[in-house]
Protein backbone atom coordinates (compact mmCIF):
# COMPACT_ATOMS: atom_id res chain seq x y z
CA UNK A 1 0.00 0.00 0.00
CA UNK A 2 2.86 2.36 0.86
CA UNK A 3 4.48 1.68 -2.52
CA UNK A 4 1.16 2.44 -4.22
CA UNK A 5 0.94 5.71 -2.32
CA UNK A 6 4.50 6.75 -3.22
CA UNK A 7 3.94 6.14 -6.93
CA UNK A 8 0.53 7.83 -6.94
CA UNK A 9 1.91 10.80 -5.01
CA UNK A 10 4.89 11.22 -7.36
CA UNK A 11 2.85 10.93 -10.56
CA UNK A 12 0.13 13.23 -9.21
CA UNK A 13 2.66 15.87 -8.18
CA UNK A 14 4.32 15.77 -11.60
CA UNK A 15 0.93 15.91 -13.37
CA UNK A 16 -0.18 18.92 -11.32
CA UNK A 17 3.19 20.65 -11.69
CA UNK A 18 3.23 20.17 -15.47
CA UNK A 19 -0.34 21.41 -15.77
CA UNK A 20 0.09 24.59 -13.76
CA UNK A 21 3.63 25.40 -14.89
CA UNK A 22 2.55 25.45 -18.52
CA UNK A 23 -0.06 28.09 -19.44
CA UNK A 24 -0.66 26.37 -22.81
CA UNK A 25 -2.03 23.38 -20.88
CA UNK A 26 -4.03 24.99 -18.09
CA UNK A 27 -5.47 27.99 -19.93
CA UNK A 28 -7.56 26.05 -22.49
CA UNK A 29 -8.95 23.91 -19.63
CA UNK A 30 -10.18 27.10 -17.94
CA UNK A 31 -11.14 29.17 -20.96
CA UNK A 32 -13.20 26.56 -22.79
CA UNK A 33 -15.79 25.93 -20.07
CA UNK A 34 -16.07 29.68 -19.47
CA UNK A 35 -16.62 30.20 -23.15
CA UNK A 36 -19.28 27.47 -23.29
CA UNK A 37 -21.00 29.02 -20.28
CA UNK A 38 -21.03 32.43 -21.98
CA UNK A 39 -22.14 31.06 -25.35
CA UNK A 40 -24.89 28.80 -24.01
CA UNK A 41 -26.18 30.76 -21.04
CA UNK A 42 -25.86 34.10 -22.85
CA UNK A 43 -26.71 33.25 -26.43
CA UNK A 44 -29.53 30.83 -25.75
CA UNK A 45 -31.17 32.44 -22.74
CA UNK A 46 -34.40 33.05 -24.65
CA UNK A 47 -34.87 29.25 -24.70
CA UNK A 48 -36.16 29.75 -21.15
CA UNK A 49 -39.16 31.46 -22.77
CA UNK A 50 -40.25 28.25 -24.51
CA UNK A 51 -43.61 27.06 -23.14
CA UNK A 52 -43.17 24.16 -20.67
CA UNK A 53 -39.60 25.16 -19.83
CA UNK A 54 -39.97 25.17 -16.09
CA UNK A 55 -36.62 25.49 -14.38
CA UNK A 56 -36.97 27.91 -11.50
CA UNK A 57 -33.32 29.00 -11.00
CA UNK A 58 -33.18 30.22 -14.63
CA UNK A 59 -31.29 29.43 -17.80
CA UNK A 60 -27.82 30.40 -16.50
CA UNK A 61 -28.13 27.82 -13.72
CA UNK A 62 -29.59 25.32 -16.19
CA UNK A 63 -26.48 25.66 -18.38
CA UNK A 64 -24.10 25.91 -15.41
CA UNK A 65 -24.95 22.32 -14.45
CA UNK A 66 -23.96 21.13 -17.91
CA UNK A 67 -20.80 23.22 -18.14
CA UNK A 68 -19.67 22.15 -14.66
CA UNK A 69 -20.01 18.46 -15.52
CA UNK A 70 -18.46 19.05 -18.94
CA UNK A 71 -15.47 20.78 -17.36
CA UNK A 72 -15.04 17.88 -14.96
CA UNK A 73 -15.18 15.35 -17.82
CA UNK A 74 -12.71 17.32 -19.89
CA UNK A 75 -10.41 17.68 -16.90
CA UNK A 76 -10.08 13.90 -17.14
CA UNK A 77 -9.79 13.93 -20.92
CA UNK A 78 -6.96 16.50 -20.91
CA UNK A 79 -5.08 14.35 -18.42
CA UNK A 80 -5.34 11.49 -20.92
CA UNK A 81 -3.57 13.72 -23.45
CA UNK A 82 -0.74 14.12 -20.93
CA UNK A 83 -0.50 10.35 -20.51
CA UNK A 84 -0.30 9.90 -24.28
CA UNK A 85 2.36 12.63 -24.46
CA UNK A 86 4.38 10.83 -21.77
CA UNK A 87 4.31 7.65 -23.87
CA UNK A 88 5.31 9.55 -27.02
CA UNK A 89 8.24 11.19 -25.25
CA UNK A 90 9.42 7.90 -23.70
CA UNK A 91 8.90 9.15 -20.13
CA UNK A 92 6.09 6.67 -19.45
CA UNK A 93 8.32 3.72 -20.29
CA UNK A 94 10.92 4.90 -17.81
CA UNK A 95 8.13 5.38 -15.29
CA UNK A 96 6.93 1.81 -15.84
CA UNK A 97 10.48 0.56 -15.25
CA UNK A 98 10.98 2.33 -11.96
CA UNK A 99 7.50 2.22 -10.38
CA UNK A 100 7.33 -0.49 -7.69
CA UNK A 101 3.50 -0.52 -7.75
CA UNK A 102 2.31 0.39 -11.25
CA UNK A 103 -1.40 0.80 -10.55
CA UNK A 104 -0.29 3.85 -8.55
CA UNK A 105 0.49 5.47 -11.92
CA UNK A 106 -3.19 5.44 -12.87
CA UNK A 107 -4.19 6.74 -9.44
CA UNK A 108 -1.58 9.52 -9.74
CA UNK A 109 -2.86 10.69 -13.10
CA UNK A 110 -6.45 10.55 -11.80
CA UNK A 111 -5.51 12.70 -8.80
CA UNK A 112 -3.83 15.13 -11.19
CA UNK A 113 -7.05 15.32 -13.20
CA UNK A 114 -9.03 16.01 -10.05
CA UNK A 115 -6.76 18.86 -8.94
CA UNK A 116 -6.96 20.35 -12.42
CA UNK A 117 -10.76 20.23 -12.27
CA UNK A 118 -10.89 21.85 -8.81
CA UNK A 119 -9.34 24.94 -10.38
CA UNK A 120 -11.49 24.83 -13.52
CA UNK A 121 -14.68 24.09 -11.59
CA UNK A 122 -13.99 26.96 -9.20
CA UNK A 123 -13.48 29.38 -12.11
CA UNK A 124 -16.71 28.24 -13.79
CA UNK A 125 -18.68 28.55 -10.54
CA UNK A 126 -17.34 32.03 -9.78
CA UNK A 127 -18.08 33.14 -13.37
CA UNK A 128 -21.64 31.80 -13.19
CA UNK A 129 -22.24 33.51 -9.83
CA UNK A 130 -20.87 36.78 -11.21
CA UNK A 131 -23.24 36.38 -14.17
CA UNK A 132 -26.13 36.33 -11.71
CA UNK A 133 -26.78 32.61 -11.41
CA UNK A 134 -29.28 31.78 -8.73
CA UNK A 135 -28.70 28.67 -6.62
CA UNK A 136 -31.72 27.48 -4.69
CA UNK A 137 -30.10 24.38 -3.20
CA UNK A 138 -28.50 24.48 0.25
CA UNK A 139 -25.04 23.44 1.42
CA UNK A 140 -25.79 19.71 1.32
CA UNK A 141 -27.11 19.98 -2.23
CA UNK A 142 -23.97 21.86 -3.29
CA UNK A 143 -21.77 19.17 -1.81
CA UNK A 144 -23.81 16.66 -3.81
CA UNK A 145 -23.39 18.75 -6.97
CA UNK A 146 -19.61 18.91 -6.67
CA UNK A 147 -19.59 15.23 -5.63
CA UNK A 148 -21.18 14.44 -8.99
CA UNK A 149 -18.46 16.49 -10.66
CA UNK A 150 -15.74 14.55 -8.83
CA UNK A 151 -17.19 11.21 -9.93
CA UNK A 152 -17.58 12.36 -13.56
CA UNK A 153 -13.97 13.56 -13.48
CA UNK A 154 -12.72 10.19 -12.20
CA UNK A 155 -14.72 8.26 -14.83
CA UNK A 156 -13.34 10.45 -17.64
CA UNK A 157 -9.76 10.31 -16.30
CA UNK A 158 -9.84 6.50 -16.09
CA UNK A 159 -11.28 6.27 -19.61
CA UNK A 160 -8.64 8.65 -20.96
CA UNK A 161 -5.79 6.86 -19.14
CA UNK A 162 -7.01 3.51 -20.48
CA UNK A 163 -7.17 4.66 -24.10
CA UNK A 164 -3.84 6.49 -23.84
CA UNK A 165 -2.15 3.42 -22.34
CA UNK A 166 -3.61 1.07 -24.93
CA UNK A 167 -2.57 3.25 -27.88
CA UNK A 168 0.50 4.99 -26.38
CA UNK A 169 0.53 7.86 -28.88
CA UNK A 170 -0.66 11.47 -28.91
CA UNK A 171 -2.71 10.60 -31.98
CA UNK A 172 -5.09 8.87 -29.55
CA UNK A 173 -6.37 12.35 -28.66
CA UNK A 174 -9.40 12.21 -30.96
CA UNK A 175 -10.37 8.76 -29.70
CA UNK A 176 -10.08 9.94 -26.11
CA UNK A 177 -12.24 13.03 -26.44
CA UNK A 178 -14.79 12.26 -29.15
CA UNK A 179 -16.79 9.61 -27.21
CA UNK A 180 -16.85 11.86 -24.13
CA UNK A 181 -17.96 14.80 -26.26
CA UNK A 182 -20.72 12.76 -27.90
CA UNK A 183 -22.01 11.21 -24.66
CA UNK A 184 -22.21 14.67 -23.08
CA UNK A 185 -23.92 16.34 -26.03
CA UNK A 186 -26.57 13.67 -26.64
CA UNK A 187 -27.94 14.48 -23.20
CA UNK A 188 -30.53 17.25 -22.59
CA UNK A 189 -27.97 20.06 -22.94
CA UNK A 190 -30.14 22.96 -24.11
CA UNK A 191 -33.62 22.03 -22.89
CA UNK A 192 -35.06 19.54 -20.38
CA UNK A 193 -35.56 15.95 -21.54
CA UNK A 194 -39.32 16.47 -21.79
CA UNK A 195 -38.81 19.13 -24.47
CA UNK A 196 -36.49 17.04 -26.62
CA UNK A 197 -38.05 15.39 -29.65
CA UNK A 198 -36.99 12.87 -32.30
CA UNK A 199 -33.96 10.61 -32.15
CA UNK A 200 -32.16 12.74 -29.60
CA UNK A 201 -34.98 12.24 -27.10
CA UNK A 202 -34.75 8.46 -27.53
CA UNK A 203 -30.97 8.50 -27.11
CA UNK A 204 -30.97 10.99 -24.23
CA UNK A 205 -33.50 8.89 -22.30
CA UNK A 206 -31.03 6.03 -22.04
CA UNK A 207 -27.85 8.10 -21.91
CA UNK A 208 -26.23 7.78 -18.45
CA UNK A 209 -25.07 11.40 -18.73
CA UNK A 210 -28.74 12.46 -18.66
CA UNK A 211 -29.18 11.11 -15.13
CA UNK A 212 -26.07 12.96 -13.92
CA UNK A 213 -27.17 16.17 -15.63
CA UNK A 214 -30.73 16.02 -14.29
CA UNK A 215 -29.43 15.21 -10.80
CA UNK A 216 -27.06 18.21 -10.98
CA UNK A 217 -29.87 20.52 -12.11
CA UNK A 218 -32.12 19.17 -9.38
CA UNK A 219 -29.46 19.88 -6.75
CA UNK A 220 -29.04 23.48 -7.95
CA UNK A 221 -32.82 23.93 -7.87
CA UNK A 222 -32.97 22.54 -4.33
CA UNK A 223 -35.27 19.70 -5.36
CA UNK A 224 -33.03 16.66 -5.93
CA UNK A 225 -34.08 14.14 -8.58
CA UNK A 226 -32.52 10.88 -9.80
CA UNK A 227 -29.73 11.16 -7.22
CA UNK A 228 -29.49 7.44 -6.47
CA UNK A 229 -29.56 6.59 -10.16
CA UNK A 230 -26.87 9.18 -11.01
CA UNK A 231 -24.50 8.26 -8.19
CA UNK A 232 -25.12 4.54 -8.79
CA UNK A 233 -24.38 4.82 -12.51
CA UNK A 234 -21.24 6.85 -11.86
CA UNK A 235 -20.01 4.38 -9.24
CA UNK A 236 -20.59 1.55 -11.72
CA UNK A 237 -18.79 3.49 -14.43
CA UNK A 238 -15.81 4.00 -12.12
CA UNK A 239 -15.63 0.27 -11.47
CA UNK A 240 -15.77 -0.55 -15.20
CA UNK A 241 -13.31 2.19 -16.18
CA UNK A 242 -10.88 1.13 -13.43
CA UNK A 243 -10.75 -2.32 -15.01
CA UNK A 244 -10.35 -0.74 -18.45
CA UNK A 245 -7.50 1.52 -17.30
CA UNK A 246 -5.82 -1.42 -15.52
CA UNK A 247 -5.98 -3.45 -18.74
CA UNK A 248 -4.53 -0.47 -20.62
CA UNK A 249 -1.67 -0.40 -18.13
CA UNK A 250 -1.16 -4.16 -18.58
CA UNK A 251 -1.05 -3.62 -22.34
CA UNK A 252 1.60 -0.92 -21.89
CA UNK A 253 3.57 -3.23 -19.58
CA UNK A 254 3.50 -6.02 -22.18
CA UNK A 255 4.64 -3.60 -24.89
CA UNK A 256 7.65 -2.80 -22.73
Amino acid sequence: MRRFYYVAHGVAWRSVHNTFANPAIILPSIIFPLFFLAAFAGGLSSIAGVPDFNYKPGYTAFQFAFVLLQSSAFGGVFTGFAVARDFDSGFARRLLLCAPQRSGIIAGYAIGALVRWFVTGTCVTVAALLAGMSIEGGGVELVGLFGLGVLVNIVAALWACGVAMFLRTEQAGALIQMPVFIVLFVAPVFVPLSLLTGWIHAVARYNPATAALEAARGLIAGSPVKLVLAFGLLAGAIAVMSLFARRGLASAERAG
Partner: protein
Amino acid sequence: MSASEAVVGAPGGISLAVPSLFDQVGAVARRSVVRIFRQRALLIFPLVFPLLLFAINGTGLAAARRIPGFPDVNYLDFALAIPFIQGALFVAITAGTDLARDIESGFFDRLALTPLRGSALLAGQLAGAVVLACVQSLVYLGVGIASGVGIASGFAGVFVLLALSILIAFGFAGLGSLLALRFGTGEAVQGFFPLLFVTVFLSSSNLPRNLITTDWFREVATYNPVSYLIEGVRSLIITGWDGEALALGFGFALALSVLTLSFAGASMKNRLVRT
Protein backbone atom coordinates in the same frame (compact mmCIF):
# COMPACT_ATOMS: atom_id res chain seq x y z
CA MET B 1 7.48 34.42 -77.68
CA SER B 2 5.82 33.27 -74.47
CA ALA B 3 7.69 32.79 -71.26
CA SER B 4 7.37 29.05 -71.57
CA GLU B 5 9.07 29.19 -74.94
CA ALA B 6 11.91 31.25 -73.64
CA VAL B 7 14.29 28.34 -73.58
CA VAL B 8 17.72 29.15 -72.42
CA GLY B 9 20.42 26.89 -73.70
CA ALA B 10 21.83 24.67 -71.04
CA PRO B 11 24.52 22.06 -70.88
CA GLY B 12 23.33 18.56 -71.67
CA GLY B 13 20.25 19.81 -73.53
CA ILE B 14 18.30 20.45 -70.32
CA SER B 15 15.40 22.87 -70.86
CA LEU B 16 15.53 25.82 -68.47
CA ALA B 17 12.33 27.47 -69.65
CA VAL B 18 10.63 29.79 -67.17
CA PRO B 19 7.08 28.43 -66.89
CA SER B 20 4.19 30.83 -67.33
CA LEU B 21 2.33 32.05 -64.25
CA PHE B 22 -0.53 29.75 -65.22
CA ASP B 23 1.80 26.73 -65.32
CA GLN B 24 3.33 27.72 -61.99
CA VAL B 25 -0.08 27.96 -60.33
CA GLY B 26 -1.14 24.68 -61.96
CA ALA B 27 1.86 22.77 -60.67
CA VAL B 28 1.48 24.00 -57.09
CA ALA B 29 -2.30 23.54 -57.23
CA ARG B 30 -1.96 19.95 -58.44
CA ARG B 31 0.41 19.18 -55.57
CA SER B 32 -1.92 20.87 -53.07
CA VAL B 33 -5.00 18.94 -54.26
CA VAL B 34 -3.18 15.59 -54.34
CA ARG B 35 -1.87 16.21 -50.83
CA ILE B 36 -5.37 16.94 -49.51
CA PHE B 37 -6.79 13.72 -50.97
CA ARG B 38 -3.87 11.62 -49.77
CA GLN B 39 -4.48 12.65 -46.18
CA ARG B 40 -7.89 11.09 -45.68
CA ALA B 41 -8.02 12.09 -42.03
CA LEU B 42 -7.97 15.71 -43.21
CA LEU B 43 -11.02 14.98 -45.33
CA ILE B 44 -13.04 12.96 -42.86
CA PHE B 45 -12.85 15.08 -39.71
CA PRO B 46 -13.95 18.37 -41.36
CA LEU B 47 -16.87 16.49 -42.91
CA VAL B 48 -17.97 14.51 -39.88
CA PHE B 49 -17.55 17.02 -37.05
CA PRO B 50 -19.81 19.81 -38.42
CA LEU B 51 -22.42 17.21 -39.41
CA LEU B 52 -22.27 15.69 -35.95
CA LEU B 53 -22.88 19.09 -34.37
CA PHE B 54 -25.64 19.71 -36.93
CA ALA B 55 -27.35 16.45 -35.96
CA ILE B 56 -27.02 17.12 -32.23
CA ASN B 57 -27.82 20.84 -32.14
CA GLY B 58 -30.38 20.63 -34.94
CA THR B 59 -32.50 18.23 -32.91
CA GLY B 60 -31.43 19.28 -29.41
CA LEU B 61 -32.50 22.86 -30.03
CA ALA B 62 -35.67 21.99 -31.95
CA ALA B 63 -37.70 23.47 -29.08
CA ALA B 64 -36.34 26.90 -30.04
CA ARG B 65 -39.00 26.92 -32.77
CA ARG B 66 -41.51 27.56 -30.03
CA ILE B 67 -39.89 30.86 -29.03
CA PRO B 68 -42.30 33.61 -30.11
CA GLY B 69 -40.90 35.32 -33.21
CA PHE B 70 -38.78 32.38 -34.39
CA PRO B 71 -38.94 31.94 -38.20
CA ASP B 72 -41.65 29.53 -39.32
CA VAL B 73 -39.25 26.73 -40.31
CA ASN B 74 -37.88 23.57 -38.75
CA TYR B 75 -34.83 24.11 -36.58
CA LEU B 76 -32.84 21.79 -38.87
CA ASP B 77 -33.49 24.21 -41.76
CA PHE B 78 -32.33 27.06 -39.55
CA ALA B 79 -29.22 25.17 -38.40
CA LEU B 80 -28.00 23.93 -41.79
CA ALA B 81 -26.04 27.14 -42.40
CA ILE B 82 -23.71 26.40 -39.48
CA PRO B 83 -21.85 23.38 -40.98
CA PHE B 84 -20.89 25.52 -43.99
CA ILE B 85 -19.15 28.02 -41.72
CA GLN B 86 -17.61 25.38 -39.45
CA GLY B 87 -16.37 23.58 -42.56
CA ALA B 88 -14.77 26.84 -43.71
CA LEU B 89 -12.88 27.01 -40.41
CA PHE B 90 -11.54 23.51 -41.00
CA VAL B 91 -10.48 24.61 -44.49
CA ALA B 92 -8.56 27.49 -42.90
CA ILE B 93 -6.72 25.15 -40.58
CA THR B 94 -6.03 22.60 -43.33
CA ALA B 95 -4.67 25.26 -45.70
CA GLY B 96 -2.62 26.88 -42.96
CA THR B 97 -1.22 23.63 -41.60
CA ASP B 98 -0.19 22.41 -45.06
CA LEU B 99 1.56 25.69 -45.78
CA ALA B 100 3.24 25.71 -42.37
CA ARG B 101 4.46 22.16 -42.93
CA ASP B 102 6.11 23.30 -46.17
CA ILE B 103 7.81 26.10 -44.26
CA GLU B 104 8.91 23.83 -41.41
CA SER B 105 10.20 21.09 -43.71
CA GLY B 106 12.35 23.53 -45.69
CA PHE B 107 10.32 23.06 -48.88
CA PHE B 108 9.75 26.82 -49.00
CA ASP B 109 13.46 27.50 -48.80
CA ARG B 110 14.06 25.22 -51.76
CA LEU B 111 11.25 26.94 -53.69
CA ALA B 112 12.94 30.26 -53.01
CA LEU B 113 15.80 29.03 -55.18
CA THR B 114 13.44 28.59 -58.15
CA PRO B 115 11.83 31.26 -60.35
CA LEU B 116 8.40 30.43 -58.85
CA ARG B 117 6.47 33.60 -58.06
CA GLY B 118 5.05 34.14 -54.59
CA SER B 119 1.57 34.89 -55.94
CA ALA B 120 1.60 31.60 -57.89
CA LEU B 121 2.63 29.70 -54.79
CA LEU B 122 -0.13 31.27 -52.70
CA ALA B 123 -2.80 30.76 -55.36
CA GLY B 124 -1.72 27.17 -55.97
CA GLN B 125 -1.66 26.36 -52.25
CA LEU B 126 -5.22 27.66 -51.94
CA ALA B 127 -6.44 25.41 -54.74
CA GLY B 128 -6.43 22.38 -52.45
CA ALA B 129 -8.46 24.34 -49.91
CA VAL B 130 -11.00 25.37 -52.55
CA VAL B 131 -11.42 21.76 -53.74
CA LEU B 132 -11.89 20.69 -50.11
CA ALA B 133 -14.48 23.45 -49.66
CA CYS B 134 -16.36 22.26 -52.76
CA VAL B 135 -16.48 18.66 -51.52
CA GLN B 136 -17.57 19.75 -48.03
CA SER B 137 -20.28 22.09 -49.30
CA LEU B 138 -21.76 19.41 -51.55
CA VAL B 139 -21.78 16.89 -48.69
CA TYR B 140 -23.37 19.33 -46.21
CA LEU B 141 -26.01 20.27 -48.75
CA GLY B 142 -26.68 16.62 -49.61
CA VAL B 143 -27.02 15.64 -45.95
CA GLY B 144 -29.25 18.64 -45.29
CA ILE B 145 -31.59 17.82 -48.16
CA ALA B 146 -31.59 14.11 -47.20
CA SER B 147 -32.63 15.06 -43.67
CA GLY B 148 -35.62 16.99 -44.99
CA VAL B 149 -34.29 20.53 -45.27
CA GLY B 150 -35.88 22.50 -48.09
CA ILE B 151 -34.01 25.23 -49.98
CA ALA B 152 -36.39 28.20 -50.08
CA SER B 153 -34.50 29.92 -52.90
CA GLY B 154 -34.96 26.90 -55.16
CA PHE B 155 -32.62 25.28 -57.65
CA ALA B 156 -30.83 28.51 -58.58
CA GLY B 157 -30.38 29.25 -54.90
CA VAL B 158 -28.41 26.03 -54.49
CA PHE B 159 -25.75 27.36 -56.86
CA VAL B 160 -25.63 30.72 -55.10
CA LEU B 161 -25.37 28.92 -51.76
CA LEU B 162 -22.46 26.83 -53.03
CA ALA B 163 -20.78 29.93 -54.47
CA LEU B 164 -21.15 31.82 -51.19
CA SER B 165 -19.95 28.92 -49.05
CA ILE B 166 -16.90 28.40 -51.30
CA LEU B 167 -16.11 32.13 -51.20
CA ILE B 168 -16.35 32.05 -47.39
CA ALA B 169 -14.06 29.01 -47.26
CA PHE B 170 -11.65 30.77 -49.63
CA GLY B 171 -11.53 33.77 -47.31
CA PHE B 172 -10.84 31.57 -44.29
CA ALA B 173 -8.23 29.59 -46.27
CA GLY B 174 -6.52 32.94 -46.89
CA LEU B 175 -6.58 33.54 -43.15
CA GLY B 176 -5.05 30.10 -42.52
CA SER B 177 -2.32 30.85 -45.07
CA LEU B 178 -1.67 34.23 -43.48
CA LEU B 179 -1.26 32.62 -40.05
CA ALA B 180 1.09 30.00 -41.49
CA LEU B 181 3.20 32.61 -43.25
CA ARG B 182 3.34 34.87 -40.19
CA PHE B 183 4.10 32.21 -37.58
CA GLY B 184 5.68 29.45 -39.67
CA THR B 185 4.51 26.51 -37.57
CA GLY B 186 1.54 24.17 -37.82
CA GLU B 187 1.17 24.23 -34.04
CA ALA B 188 0.61 27.99 -34.10
CA VAL B 189 -1.98 27.67 -36.87
CA GLN B 190 -3.86 24.94 -35.00
CA GLY B 191 -3.69 26.99 -31.83
CA PHE B 192 -5.90 29.58 -33.56
CA PHE B 193 -8.64 27.05 -34.27
CA PRO B 194 -10.43 27.43 -30.92
CA LEU B 195 -10.35 31.19 -31.37
CA LEU B 196 -11.96 30.88 -34.80
CA PHE B 197 -14.51 28.46 -33.38
CA VAL B 198 -15.43 31.01 -30.70
CA THR B 199 -16.42 33.47 -33.43
CA VAL B 200 -19.06 31.01 -34.64
CA PHE B 201 -20.50 30.48 -31.17
CA LEU B 202 -20.57 34.22 -30.45
CA SER B 203 -22.72 34.90 -33.50
CA SER B 204 -26.32 34.41 -34.58
CA SER B 205 -25.54 30.75 -35.27
CA ASN B 206 -28.08 29.29 -32.85
CA LEU B 207 -30.80 31.94 -32.74
CA PRO B 208 -31.80 34.96 -34.85
CA ARG B 209 -30.17 38.11 -33.45
CA ASN B 210 -33.52 39.70 -32.56
CA LEU B 211 -34.30 36.72 -30.30
CA ILE B 212 -31.03 36.88 -28.35
CA THR B 213 -32.19 38.38 -25.08
CA THR B 214 -28.80 38.80 -23.38
CA ASP B 215 -27.73 42.33 -24.32
CA TRP B 216 -23.95 41.85 -24.41
CA PHE B 217 -24.27 38.69 -26.47
CA ARG B 218 -26.57 40.39 -28.98
CA GLU B 219 -24.08 43.28 -29.27
CA VAL B 220 -21.18 40.89 -29.86
CA ALA B 221 -23.20 38.92 -32.42
CA THR B 222 -24.15 42.15 -34.21
CA TYR B 223 -20.54 43.29 -34.55
CA ASN B 224 -19.30 39.80 -35.38
CA PRO B 225 -18.91 39.45 -39.19
CA VAL B 226 -19.47 35.69 -38.89
CA SER B 227 -23.14 36.45 -38.08
CA TYR B 228 -23.55 37.97 -41.54
CA LEU B 229 -21.78 35.08 -43.25
CA ILE B 230 -24.16 32.64 -41.52
CA GLU B 231 -27.20 34.81 -42.21
CA GLY B 232 -26.27 35.04 -45.91
CA VAL B 233 -26.17 31.25 -46.25
CA ARG B 234 -29.22 30.84 -44.01
CA SER B 235 -31.32 33.32 -46.00
CA LEU B 236 -31.02 31.13 -49.11
CA ILE B 237 -32.21 28.11 -47.11
CA ILE B 238 -35.08 29.52 -45.07
CA THR B 239 -36.10 32.87 -46.61
CA GLY B 240 -35.51 32.69 -50.35
CA TRP B 241 -33.94 35.67 -52.09
CA ASP B 242 -33.08 38.23 -49.41
CA GLY B 243 -30.99 40.90 -51.14
CA GLU B 244 -29.71 42.53 -47.94
CA ALA B 245 -28.61 39.27 -46.29
CA LEU B 246 -26.93 38.12 -49.50
CA ALA B 247 -25.19 41.47 -50.04
CA LEU B 248 -23.86 41.41 -46.49
CA GLY B 249 -22.88 37.73 -46.75
CA PHE B 250 -21.05 38.12 -50.06
CA GLY B 251 -19.65 41.49 -48.98
CA PHE B 252 -18.08 40.19 -45.78
CA ALA B 253 -16.84 37.02 -47.51
CA LEU B 254 -15.23 39.12 -50.24
CA ALA B 255 -13.74 41.54 -47.73
CA LEU B 256 -12.32 38.63 -45.73
CA SER B 257 -10.79 37.15 -48.89
CA VAL B 258 -9.29 40.43 -50.07
CA LEU B 259 -7.89 41.36 -46.67
CA THR B 260 -6.40 38.00 -45.81
CA LEU B 261 -4.94 37.44 -49.27
CA SER B 262 -3.43 40.93 -49.34
CA PHE B 263 -1.72 40.40 -46.01
CA ALA B 264 -0.76 36.83 -46.95
CA GLY B 265 0.75 38.11 -50.20
CA ALA B 266 2.86 40.62 -48.27
CA SER B 267 3.96 37.93 -45.80
CA MET B 268 4.78 35.60 -48.68
CA LYS B 269 7.23 38.17 -50.04
CA ASN B 270 9.08 38.14 -46.73
CA ARG B 271 9.09 34.35 -46.60
CA LEU B 272 10.41 33.98 -50.13
CA VAL B 273 13.27 36.41 -49.80
CA ARG B 274 15.80 35.45 -52.44
CA THR B 275 19.28 35.65 -51.09
